[in-house]
């Protein structure tokens, strides 16, 4: 299909361009917005592959939640851009080494055929033909059976990280008065309200004791 090819190249080009802009743009808020654009186009690529569940999850989790918090933090930060730029050359060698190692690994994987996407039985195990089973069902079938423990383990790691972050940052200040909803609801009107018979002209009798 011509259309699919055109759509693929548009999405791919925009993804890469947005990825470059993430690191090239001067303003960190704009960087995050370009990151979101890159996520969107990757979701589009997933849809082209027929992996609509992954596409939606990518948008819900990364664009809808993670990037929002990211944007939130970046907007609140007071960043000095010139200071950031000053360290660029200093860290360039380290960044370049990491990049080269990752690239070499990717090339190795493809050249040695550690993942060969053309092997039919690999395809048959992971993704049944879309006409038979929707890919949501296929993913569920494999995640909750063969990889159930790994899946649960990943969930637990995230939970521990979350609890840890809360424990590390949470502090209970004593001087702050907090609203205790349970206490308010449990208050008995008979005990809380006192009716006093005030005689006219008697000063101070309305005062509580």
């Amino acid at each position, binding site marked *: 299909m011509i259309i699919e090819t055109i759509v693929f190249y548009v999405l791919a080009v925009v993804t890469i361009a947005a990825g470059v802009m993430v690191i090239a743009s001067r303003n960190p*808020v704009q960087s995050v917005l370009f990151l979101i654009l890159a996520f969107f186009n990757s979701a589009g690529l997933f849809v082209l592959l027929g992996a609509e*569940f992954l596409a*939606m999850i990518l948008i819900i989790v990364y664009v809808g*939640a993670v990037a*929002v918090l990211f*944007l939130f933090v970046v*907007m609140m930060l007071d960043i000095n851009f010139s200071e950031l730029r000053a360290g660029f050359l200093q860290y360039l060698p380290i960044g370049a080494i990491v990049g080269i190692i990752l690239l070499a690994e990717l090339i190795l994987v493809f050249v040695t055929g550690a993942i060969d996407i053309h092997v039919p039985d690999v395809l048959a195990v992971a993704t049944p033909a879309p006409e038979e089973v929707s*890919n949501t069902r296929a993913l569920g079938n494999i995640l909750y059976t063969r990889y159930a423990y790994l899946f649960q383990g990943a969930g637990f790691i995230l939970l521990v990280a979350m609890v840890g972050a809360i424990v590390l940052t949470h502090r209970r200040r004593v001087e702050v008065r907090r*609203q205790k*909803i349970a206490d308010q609801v449990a208050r008995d009107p008979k005990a809380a309200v006192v009716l006093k018979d005030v005689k006219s002209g008697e000063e101070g009798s309305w005062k509580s004791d």
Partner: protein
Amino acid sequence: MAESNFWVDYILPLLLIVGYIAAIIVPVLLVVALVTYGERKIWAAMQFRKGPNVVGPFGLFQPLADGLKLLMKETIIPTGANRVLFIMAPMIMFALGLIGWAVIPFDAHLVLADINVGILYLFAVSSLGVYGIIIAGWASNSKYGFLGALRSAAQMVSYEVSIGFVLVTVMLAAGSLNLRDIVEAQKGLWFFIPLAPMFVIYIISALAETNRTPFDLPEAEGELVAGYQVEYSAMTWALFMLGEYANIVLLSGLCVVLFLGGWLPPFHVEPFIWIPGFIWFIVKTALVIFIFTWVRATMPRYRYDQLMRLGWKVFLPASLAWVVITAGAMHLFGWMPQ
């Protein structure tokens, strides 16, 4: 031969889809205009006033007059604002209010895109709504706008979590992520009866997700003037309003699909099944929109800490518990679909 194929294979479907989109968007925008009118009339009735009654019969053309007024006004872009993002934010808001309608089934076969993950698509669209607000607040380079944007970001992320769990229960009960299948699964019993607590949580979370009273803290006019909208004027502001109302209508429509049986008549007997399905859909959606309006006319605004407490300490555990209870009960009694 190849040329004719090109026209039949590409251009014709393209024109058809554009036609379908227009056939959905034009009525949606009309409904949005009507909702703004109906809302003012309902508030007026609840406060013993008359509401708009000057323009046209019963004031029906009031939304048109409002739209024309906003169109004639000057669009002001504040100095120091990020121009591109400032203009983009209302567009995002408006577009997000419209694209969700692509998967809403109005009738058994009246749906533009009958995709497998319809419910996830809608969840994704509703979770993107926060961007319009947060970009608007940041780009307008104003304290009030920024405070409103931050509040809305925290609020929408919090309430999305419970909406997610509500959707999971509905998926469990229906055994599908396709909106048409979800409606078909309610043939016997609409889901708002067996899933009553989730229905309540959904309605309240939808109020928070659309920044409506009692959760309209992002635009709290008493303290933040109008929050993220404070620097917007004329059509940019109108796009925000249109987007907000389109979102309300969309979430009401989703509520009908998830809990109130979509296009299905209340009883599958003679007088009810004569009425076509999309009429039922419209009537039910109008009912949910009325609830939104009713709440806005009666409820005071929440305080920010109360809002967060409700989202994280009440709704999150409650909805998580209901997911477990629903799944457990369905497994125990063998009610699982298929």
